[in-house]
Protein backbone atom coordinates (compact mmCIF):
# COMPACT_ATOMS: atom_id res chain seq x y z
CA UNK A 1 0.00 0.00 0.00
CA UNK A 2 2.82 2.35 0.92
CA UNK A 3 4.47 1.59 -2.41
CA UNK A 4 1.35 2.48 -4.35
CA UNK A 5 0.99 5.77 -2.51
CA UNK A 6 4.66 6.45 -3.21
CA UNK A 7 4.13 5.63 -6.89
CA UNK A 8 1.14 7.94 -7.19
CA UNK A 9 3.07 10.66 -5.41
CA UNK A 10 5.92 10.40 -7.88
CA UNK A 11 3.59 10.17 -10.84
CA UNK A 12 1.69 13.19 -9.54
CA UNK A 13 4.81 15.36 -9.64
CA UNK A 14 5.60 14.16 -13.13
CA UNK A 15 2.04 14.89 -14.25
CA UNK A 16 2.30 18.47 -12.98
CA UNK A 17 5.62 18.74 -14.79
CA UNK A 18 4.03 17.61 -18.06
CA UNK A 19 1.17 20.11 -17.71
CA UNK A 20 3.48 23.05 -16.96
CA UNK A 21 5.95 22.08 -19.68
CA UNK A 22 3.12 21.68 -22.19
CA UNK A 23 1.85 25.13 -21.30
CA UNK A 24 5.32 26.65 -21.70
CA UNK A 25 6.00 24.98 -25.05
CA UNK A 26 2.56 25.98 -26.33
CA UNK A 27 3.39 29.60 -25.51
CA UNK A 28 6.75 29.26 -27.23
CA UNK A 29 5.46 27.76 -30.46
CA UNK A 30 2.62 30.23 -30.77
CA UNK A 31 5.25 32.96 -30.95
CA UNK A 32 6.01 32.87 -34.60
CA UNK A 33 2.77 34.48 -35.68
CA UNK A 34 1.05 37.58 -34.48
CA UNK A 35 -0.42 36.03 -31.33
CA UNK A 36 2.77 37.16 -29.76
CA UNK A 37 2.10 40.79 -30.52
CA UNK A 38 -1.30 40.63 -28.83
CA UNK A 39 0.10 38.67 -25.94
CA UNK A 40 2.95 40.95 -25.02
CA UNK A 41 1.24 44.24 -25.79
CA UNK A 42 0.48 44.87 -22.11
CA UNK A 43 3.88 43.82 -20.90
CA UNK A 44 5.86 45.77 -23.50
CA UNK A 45 4.99 49.02 -21.80
CA UNK A 46 6.28 48.24 -18.33
CA UNK A 47 9.24 46.19 -19.51
CA UNK A 48 10.02 49.01 -21.94
CA UNK A 49 9.81 51.48 -19.07
CA UNK A 50 12.44 49.57 -17.11
CA UNK A 51 14.64 49.27 -20.17
CA UNK A 52 14.43 52.96 -20.98
CA UNK A 53 15.57 53.85 -17.45
CA UNK A 54 18.54 51.59 -17.96
CA UNK A 55 19.22 53.09 -21.40
CA UNK A 56 19.25 56.60 -19.92
CA UNK A 57 21.89 55.50 -17.47
CA UNK A 58 23.99 53.74 -20.09
CA UNK A 59 23.81 56.70 -22.42
CA UNK A 60 26.12 58.81 -20.28
CA UNK A 61 28.82 56.30 -20.97
CA UNK A 62 28.09 56.26 -24.68
CA UNK A 63 27.87 60.05 -25.11
CA UNK A 64 31.20 60.27 -26.91
CA UNK A 65 30.19 57.78 -29.57
CA UNK A 66 26.80 59.42 -29.96
CA UNK A 67 28.45 62.81 -30.49
CA UNK A 68 30.68 61.37 -33.18
CA UNK A 69 27.71 59.83 -34.92
CA UNK A 70 25.70 63.02 -34.76
CA UNK A 71 28.63 65.03 -36.07
CA UNK A 72 28.85 62.66 -39.04
CA UNK A 73 25.13 62.95 -39.63
CA UNK A 74 25.32 66.75 -39.53
CA UNK A 75 28.12 66.65 -42.07
CA UNK A 76 26.06 64.42 -44.33
CA UNK A 77 23.02 66.66 -44.05
CA UNK A 78 25.11 69.75 -44.74
CA UNK A 79 26.33 68.04 -47.90
CA UNK A 80 22.74 67.79 -49.02
CA UNK A 81 21.90 71.42 -48.30
CA UNK A 82 20.94 73.48 -51.35
CA UNK A 83 23.95 75.66 -50.64
CA UNK A 84 26.21 72.69 -51.31
CA UNK A 85 24.94 72.45 -54.86
CA UNK A 86 25.83 74.57 -57.80
CA UNK A 87 22.91 75.50 -59.96
CA UNK A 88 23.62 75.01 -63.64
CA UNK A 89 21.17 76.17 -66.20
CA UNK A 90 20.99 74.52 -69.57
CA UNK A 91 18.16 76.05 -71.53
CA UNK A 92 14.76 74.86 -70.37
CA UNK A 93 14.30 73.78 -66.75
CA UNK A 94 11.88 71.03 -65.97
CA UNK A 95 9.95 71.47 -62.77
CA UNK A 96 10.03 68.46 -60.47
CA UNK A 97 7.78 68.65 -57.43
CA UNK A 98 9.64 66.50 -54.98
CA UNK A 99 6.89 66.66 -52.35
CA UNK A 100 4.36 64.99 -54.62
CA UNK A 101 6.81 62.22 -55.36
CA UNK A 102 7.75 61.55 -51.79
CA UNK A 103 7.19 57.95 -50.88
CA UNK A 104 9.01 57.35 -47.60
CA UNK A 105 8.77 59.19 -44.30
CA UNK A 106 11.56 58.76 -41.77
CA UNK A 107 10.79 58.94 -38.06
CA UNK A 108 13.56 58.94 -35.49
CA UNK A 109 13.48 56.72 -32.42
CA UNK A 110 15.86 55.89 -29.63
CA UNK A 111 16.95 52.33 -28.94
CA UNK A 112 16.24 51.44 -25.31
CA UNK A 113 17.21 47.79 -25.44
CA UNK A 114 18.98 45.58 -27.94
CA UNK A 115 20.43 42.10 -27.73
CA UNK A 116 22.95 40.59 -30.11
CA UNK A 117 24.06 37.44 -28.34
CA UNK A 118 21.07 35.18 -28.97
CA UNK A 119 19.57 33.30 -31.89
CA UNK A 120 16.46 35.45 -31.90
CA UNK A 121 17.47 38.97 -30.98
CA UNK A 122 15.17 41.92 -30.49
CA UNK A 123 15.54 45.69 -30.46
CA UNK A 124 13.17 47.84 -28.37
CA UNK A 125 12.45 51.42 -29.46
CA UNK A 126 11.09 54.23 -27.28
CA UNK A 127 8.44 55.19 -29.82
CA UNK A 128 5.21 53.26 -30.35
CA UNK A 129 1.72 53.49 -31.78
CA UNK A 130 1.20 57.00 -30.40
CA UNK A 131 4.36 58.08 -32.23
CA UNK A 132 3.02 56.75 -35.53
CA UNK A 133 4.88 53.44 -35.53
CA UNK A 134 3.02 50.43 -36.87
CA UNK A 135 4.03 46.78 -37.38
CA UNK A 136 5.81 45.97 -40.66
CA UNK A 137 7.65 49.26 -40.94
CA UNK A 138 11.32 49.08 -41.87
CA UNK A 139 14.01 50.36 -39.51
CA UNK A 140 17.39 51.77 -40.55
CA UNK A 141 20.30 53.30 -38.69
CA UNK A 142 22.80 55.82 -40.02
CA UNK A 143 25.01 53.08 -41.47
CA UNK A 144 22.42 50.72 -42.96
CA UNK A 145 19.38 48.54 -42.38
CA UNK A 146 18.42 47.38 -38.88
CA UNK A 147 15.21 45.35 -39.24
CA UNK A 148 11.43 45.35 -39.30
CA UNK A 149 8.94 46.43 -36.61
CA UNK A 150 7.14 43.35 -35.29
CA UNK A 151 4.83 44.64 -32.59
CA UNK A 152 4.02 47.98 -31.00
CA UNK A 153 2.49 49.14 -27.75
CA UNK A 154 1.48 52.73 -27.02
CA UNK A 155 4.97 53.97 -26.25
CA UNK A 156 7.34 51.24 -27.37
CA UNK A 157 8.01 49.14 -30.43
CA UNK A 158 9.72 45.76 -30.79
CA UNK A 159 11.92 45.36 -33.85
CA UNK A 160 13.04 42.08 -35.38
CA UNK A 161 16.60 42.95 -36.43
CA UNK A 162 18.78 41.32 -39.07
CA UNK A 163 20.21 39.30 -36.17
CA UNK A 164 17.11 37.10 -35.87
CA UNK A 165 16.90 33.61 -37.31
CA UNK A 166 13.50 34.37 -38.92
CA UNK A 167 14.69 37.60 -40.57
CA UNK A 168 14.81 37.76 -44.36
CA UNK A 169 15.36 40.73 -46.66
CA UNK A 170 15.65 41.16 -50.40
CA UNK A 171 19.06 42.68 -51.21
CA UNK A 172 21.27 43.01 -54.26
CA UNK A 173 24.86 43.47 -55.36
CA UNK A 174 25.18 47.19 -55.97
CA UNK A 175 27.55 46.80 -58.92
CA UNK A 176 25.86 44.08 -60.98
CA UNK A 177 22.25 44.19 -59.72
CA UNK A 178 21.95 40.46 -59.01
CA UNK A 179 19.63 40.00 -56.05
CA UNK A 180 19.20 37.40 -53.32
CA UNK A 181 18.06 36.99 -49.72
CA UNK A 182 19.83 38.25 -46.64
CA UNK A 183 19.60 35.85 -43.70
CA UNK A 184 21.36 35.38 -40.37
CA UNK A 185 22.13 31.99 -38.86
CA UNK A 186 23.29 32.97 -35.40
CA UNK A 187 26.80 33.36 -34.05
CA UNK A 188 28.81 36.41 -35.03
CA UNK A 189 26.62 39.56 -34.78
CA UNK A 190 28.77 41.28 -37.42
CA UNK A 191 28.31 38.71 -40.19
CA UNK A 192 25.15 37.83 -42.13
CA UNK A 193 24.69 35.60 -45.17
CA UNK A 194 23.48 36.37 -48.66
CA UNK A 195 21.99 33.37 -50.44
CA UNK A 196 20.50 32.66 -53.88
CA UNK A 197 23.08 34.66 -55.88
CA UNK A 198 23.75 32.66 -59.09
CA UNK A 199 27.35 31.59 -59.69
CA UNK A 200 27.26 33.41 -63.02
CA UNK A 201 27.13 36.75 -61.20
CA UNK A 202 30.43 38.63 -60.95
CA UNK A 203 31.28 38.96 -57.25
CA UNK A 204 34.38 40.23 -55.53
CA UNK A 205 35.32 40.55 -51.89
CA UNK A 206 34.52 44.11 -50.82
CA UNK A 207 31.49 44.58 -53.11
CA UNK A 208 28.67 46.66 -51.63
CA UNK A 209 25.32 45.08 -50.83
CA UNK A 210 22.23 47.34 -50.87
CA UNK A 211 18.46 46.88 -50.51
CA UNK A 212 16.40 46.22 -53.63
CA UNK A 213 13.29 48.20 -52.72
CA UNK A 214 11.08 45.25 -53.74
CA UNK A 215 9.46 45.14 -50.32
CA UNK A 216 7.59 47.97 -48.64
CA UNK A 217 10.06 47.96 -45.76
CA UNK A 218 13.03 49.88 -47.13
CA UNK A 219 13.66 52.23 -50.04
CA UNK A 220 16.01 50.90 -52.73
CA UNK A 221 19.73 51.42 -52.34
CA UNK A 222 20.08 51.47 -48.56
CA UNK A 223 23.45 50.13 -47.48
CA UNK A 224 23.48 46.64 -45.97
CA UNK A 225 27.16 45.69 -45.84
CA UNK A 226 30.22 44.49 -47.73
CA UNK A 227 31.05 41.06 -49.12
CA UNK A 228 33.65 39.52 -46.83
CA UNK A 229 33.86 35.93 -48.00
CA UNK A 230 32.65 34.06 -51.08
CA UNK A 231 31.59 30.44 -50.74
CA UNK A 232 29.75 28.17 -53.12
CA UNK A 233 26.49 26.87 -51.59
CA UNK A 234 25.79 24.39 -54.38
CA UNK A 235 26.46 24.07 -58.10
CA UNK A 236 24.14 26.95 -58.97
CA UNK A 237 24.40 29.51 -56.20
CA UNK A 238 26.89 31.33 -54.02
CA UNK A 239 26.76 31.76 -50.26
CA UNK A 240 28.22 35.19 -49.50
CA UNK A 241 29.29 36.23 -46.02
CA UNK A 242 28.34 39.87 -45.51
CA UNK A 243 30.05 42.19 -43.03
CA UNK A 244 27.06 44.24 -41.81
CA UNK A 245 27.57 47.99 -41.88
CA UNK A 246 25.51 48.52 -38.71
CA UNK A 247 27.11 47.49 -35.43
CA UNK A 248 24.22 46.00 -33.46
CA UNK A 249 26.26 46.09 -30.27
CA UNK A 250 26.15 49.89 -30.15
CA UNK A 251 22.85 50.97 -31.66
CA UNK A 252 21.70 54.37 -30.38
CA UNK A 253 19.35 56.15 -32.70
CA UNK A 254 17.42 54.63 -35.58
CA UNK A 255 14.94 55.81 -38.15
CA UNK A 256 11.62 54.05 -38.72
CA UNK A 257 10.42 54.20 -42.32
CA UNK A 258 6.81 54.71 -43.27
CA UNK A 259 6.00 53.71 -46.84
CA UNK A 260 3.13 55.89 -47.99
CA UNK A 261 2.25 53.50 -50.78
CA UNK A 262 2.30 50.41 -48.57
CA UNK A 263 -1.49 49.97 -48.57
CA UNK A 264 -1.64 50.39 -52.33
CA UNK A 265 1.06 47.79 -52.95
CA UNK A 266 -0.37 45.38 -50.37
CA UNK A 267 -3.87 45.53 -51.85
CA UNK A 268 -2.42 44.96 -55.32
CA UNK A 269 -0.55 41.91 -53.99
CA UNK A 270 -3.75 40.63 -52.39
CA UNK A 271 -5.65 41.03 -55.63
CA UNK A 272 -2.97 39.07 -57.48
CA UNK A 273 -3.07 36.31 -54.89
CA UNK A 274 -6.84 36.09 -55.20
CA UNK A 275 -6.58 35.94 -58.97
CA UNK A 276 -3.96 33.21 -58.74
CA UNK A 277 -6.12 31.27 -56.30
CA UNK A 278 -9.12 31.63 -58.63
CA UNK A 279 -7.19 30.31 -61.63
CA UNK A 280 -5.86 27.43 -59.56
CA UNK A 281 -9.40 26.34 -58.76
CA UNK A 282 -10.45 26.40 -62.35
Amino acid at each position, binding site marked *: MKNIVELIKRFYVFLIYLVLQGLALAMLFNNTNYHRAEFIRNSTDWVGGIYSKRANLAQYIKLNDINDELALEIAELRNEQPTSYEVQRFGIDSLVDTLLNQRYFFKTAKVVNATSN*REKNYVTLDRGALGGIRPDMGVVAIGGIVGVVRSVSDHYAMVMPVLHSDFKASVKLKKSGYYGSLVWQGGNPGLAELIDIPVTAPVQVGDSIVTTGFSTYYPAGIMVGLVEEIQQANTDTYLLKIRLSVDFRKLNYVMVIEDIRKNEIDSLNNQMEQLDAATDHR
Partner: protein
Amino acid sequence: MLQQIIANTIRILFLVLLQALVVGRINASDGLILPYVYIFALLMLPFQTPAWLVMVISFLTGWLMDYFTGPVGLHTSACVFLGFVIPLVNKFLSPREGYDSTQRPTVQRMGITWYVTYAAICTFFHHGFLFFIEVMRFSDFFYQIAHIFLSSLATLILMVIGQYIIYNTKTTEQ
Protein backbone atom coordinates in the same frame (compact mmCIF):
# COMPACT_ATOMS: atom_id res chain seq x y z
CA MET B 1 8.14 30.67 6.90
CA LEU B 2 6.79 34.06 5.89
CA GLN B 3 10.29 35.42 6.09
CA GLN B 4 11.46 32.75 3.66
CA ILE B 5 8.67 33.51 1.19
CA ILE B 6 9.54 37.20 1.21
CA ALA B 7 13.29 36.53 0.97
CA ASN B 8 12.88 34.16 -1.97
CA THR B 9 10.48 36.48 -3.81
CA ILE B 10 12.86 39.42 -3.46
CA ARG B 11 15.76 37.22 -4.54
CA ILE B 12 13.90 36.09 -7.67
CA LEU B 13 12.88 39.64 -8.65
CA PHE B 14 16.38 40.98 -8.02
CA LEU B 15 18.12 38.25 -10.00
CA VAL B 16 15.72 38.49 -12.96
CA LEU B 17 16.38 42.23 -13.14
CA LEU B 18 20.11 41.66 -12.75
CA GLN B 19 19.97 39.15 -15.59
CA ALA B 20 17.91 41.40 -17.87
CA LEU B 21 19.79 44.63 -17.25
CA VAL B 22 23.38 43.59 -16.58
CA VAL B 23 24.39 39.96 -17.08
CA GLY B 24 22.33 39.43 -20.24
CA ARG B 25 24.30 42.19 -21.94
CA ILE B 26 27.56 40.25 -21.72
CA ASN B 27 28.70 39.56 -25.23
CA ALA B 28 31.78 37.40 -24.85
CA SER B 29 33.08 35.70 -28.01
CA ASP B 30 30.06 36.74 -30.10
CA GLY B 31 27.48 35.15 -27.83
CA LEU B 32 29.38 31.91 -27.32
CA ILE B 33 29.52 32.53 -23.58
CA LEU B 34 26.16 33.68 -22.22
CA PRO B 35 25.59 33.11 -18.50
CA TYR B 36 22.08 32.97 -17.04
CA VAL B 37 22.57 33.72 -13.35
CA TYR B 38 18.90 34.16 -12.51
CA ILE B 39 18.60 30.39 -11.94
CA PHE B 40 20.64 31.06 -8.79
CA ALA B 41 17.33 32.10 -7.19
CA LEU B 42 15.78 28.73 -7.99
CA LEU B 43 18.81 26.80 -6.75
CA MET B 44 18.50 28.67 -3.44
CA LEU B 45 15.00 27.35 -2.69
CA PRO B 46 14.99 25.46 0.66
CA PHE B 47 15.24 21.67 0.59
CA GLN B 48 11.82 21.36 2.23
CA THR B 49 10.01 23.03 -0.69
CA PRO B 50 7.64 20.44 -2.23
CA ALA B 51 8.49 19.39 -5.78
CA TRP B 52 5.30 20.80 -7.29
CA LEU B 53 5.92 24.17 -5.67
CA VAL B 54 9.47 24.26 -7.02
CA MET B 55 8.05 23.74 -10.51
CA VAL B 56 5.35 26.39 -10.11
CA ILE B 57 7.89 28.93 -8.80
CA SER B 58 10.22 28.02 -11.67
CA PHE B 59 7.42 28.47 -14.16
CA LEU B 60 6.61 31.96 -12.86
CA THR B 61 10.28 32.96 -12.72
CA GLY B 62 10.85 31.81 -16.29
CA TRP B 63 7.75 33.64 -17.42
CA LEU B 64 8.96 36.87 -15.84
CA MET B 65 12.34 36.39 -17.52
CA ASP B 66 10.65 35.86 -20.87
CA TYR B 67 8.96 39.24 -20.67
CA PHE B 68 12.40 40.80 -20.69
CA THR B 69 14.25 38.74 -23.23
CA GLY B 70 12.15 37.91 -26.24
CA PRO B 71 10.13 34.86 -27.20
CA VAL B 72 7.62 34.09 -24.44
CA GLY B 73 7.88 30.45 -23.37
CA LEU B 74 11.61 29.96 -23.91
CA HIS B 75 12.83 30.53 -20.37
CA THR B 76 9.51 29.28 -19.02
CA SER B 77 10.03 25.82 -20.48
CA ALA B 78 13.71 25.68 -19.52
CA CYS B 79 12.86 26.74 -15.96
CA VAL B 80 10.04 24.21 -15.62
CA PHE B 81 12.54 21.56 -16.65
CA LEU B 82 15.00 22.89 -14.08
CA GLY B 83 12.24 22.89 -11.45
CA PHE B 84 11.62 19.25 -12.24
CA VAL B 85 15.32 18.42 -12.00
CA ILE B 86 16.21 20.31 -8.76
CA PRO B 87 14.32 18.00 -6.31
CA LEU B 88 15.71 14.93 -8.09
CA VAL B 89 19.28 16.23 -7.85
CA ASN B 90 18.70 17.11 -4.20
CA LYS B 91 17.52 13.58 -3.53
CA PHE B 92 20.44 12.12 -5.46
CA LEU B 93 23.00 14.16 -3.52
CA SER B 94 21.36 13.91 -0.11
CA PRO B 95 23.44 12.68 2.84
CA ARG B 96 22.41 9.29 4.22
CA GLU B 97 20.42 10.75 7.11
CA GLY B 98 18.67 13.28 4.85
CA TYR B 99 18.64 17.04 5.12
CA ASP B 100 17.72 18.59 8.44
CA SER B 101 15.52 21.63 8.65
CA THR B 102 18.36 24.06 9.31
CA GLN B 103 20.23 23.15 6.13
CA ARG B 104 20.09 25.35 3.05
CA PRO B 105 21.61 24.68 -0.38
CA THR B 106 24.53 27.06 0.17
CA VAL B 107 28.30 26.70 0.21
CA GLN B 108 28.41 27.66 3.89
CA ARG B 109 25.96 24.99 5.05
CA MET B 110 26.72 22.15 2.64
CA GLY B 111 30.38 22.66 1.72
CA ILE B 112 31.96 23.70 -1.54
CA THR B 113 32.16 20.21 -3.08
CA TRP B 114 28.49 19.49 -2.52
CA TYR B 115 27.44 22.92 -3.76
CA VAL B 116 29.51 22.85 -6.95
CA THR B 117 28.25 19.36 -7.80
CA TYR B 118 24.65 20.39 -7.19
CA ALA B 119 24.90 23.70 -9.05
CA ALA B 120 26.87 22.21 -11.95
CA ILE B 121 24.32 19.47 -12.63
CA CYS B 122 21.36 21.86 -12.40
CA THR B 123 23.02 24.58 -14.48
CA PHE B 124 24.02 22.13 -17.17
CA PHE B 125 20.49 20.72 -17.44
CA HIS B 126 18.96 24.19 -17.61
CA HIS B 127 21.42 25.64 -20.13
CA GLY B 128 21.39 22.52 -22.27
CA PHE B 129 17.60 22.53 -22.47
CA LEU B 130 17.48 26.29 -23.07
CA PHE B 131 20.05 26.47 -25.84
CA PHE B 132 18.77 23.46 -27.73
CA ILE B 133 15.17 24.63 -27.61
CA GLU B 134 16.27 28.11 -28.68
CA VAL B 135 18.12 26.88 -31.74
CA MET B 136 16.07 23.79 -32.63
CA ARG B 137 18.62 22.47 -35.04
CA PHE B 138 21.61 20.23 -34.66
CA SER B 139 23.72 21.50 -37.55
CA ASP B 140 26.38 23.33 -35.52
CA PHE B 141 26.53 20.52 -33.02
CA PHE B 142 30.00 21.20 -31.64
CA TYR B 143 29.38 24.92 -31.48
CA GLN B 144 26.23 24.23 -29.46
CA ILE B 145 28.07 21.87 -27.11
CA ALA B 146 30.80 24.47 -26.56
CA HIS B 147 28.09 27.10 -26.08
CA ILE B 148 26.39 25.03 -23.39
CA PHE B 149 29.58 24.06 -21.56
CA LEU B 150 31.21 27.49 -21.54
CA SER B 151 27.98 29.28 -20.59
CA SER B 152 27.30 26.79 -17.80
CA LEU B 153 30.83 27.27 -16.52
CA ALA B 154 30.41 31.06 -16.54
CA THR B 155 27.09 30.80 -14.70
CA LEU B 156 28.60 28.41 -12.16
CA ILE B 157 31.56 30.68 -11.46
CA LEU B 158 29.29 33.71 -11.03
CA MET B 159 26.99 31.77 -8.70
CA VAL B 160 29.83 30.54 -6.46
CA ILE B 161 31.28 34.06 -6.30
CA GLY B 162 27.77 35.31 -5.49
CA GLN B 163 27.50 32.83 -2.64
CA TYR B 164 30.70 34.14 -1.05
CA ILE B 165 29.72 37.78 -1.54
CA ILE B 166 26.25 37.40 -0.01
CA TYR B 167 26.79 34.87 2.74
CA ASN B 168 30.25 35.60 4.15
CA THR B 169 29.11 38.98 5.41
CA LYS B 170 25.94 37.50 6.90
CA THR B 171 27.62 34.67 8.77
CA THR B 172 30.23 36.97 10.25
CA GLU B 173 27.50 39.31 11.47
CA GLN B 174 25.66 36.55 13.29
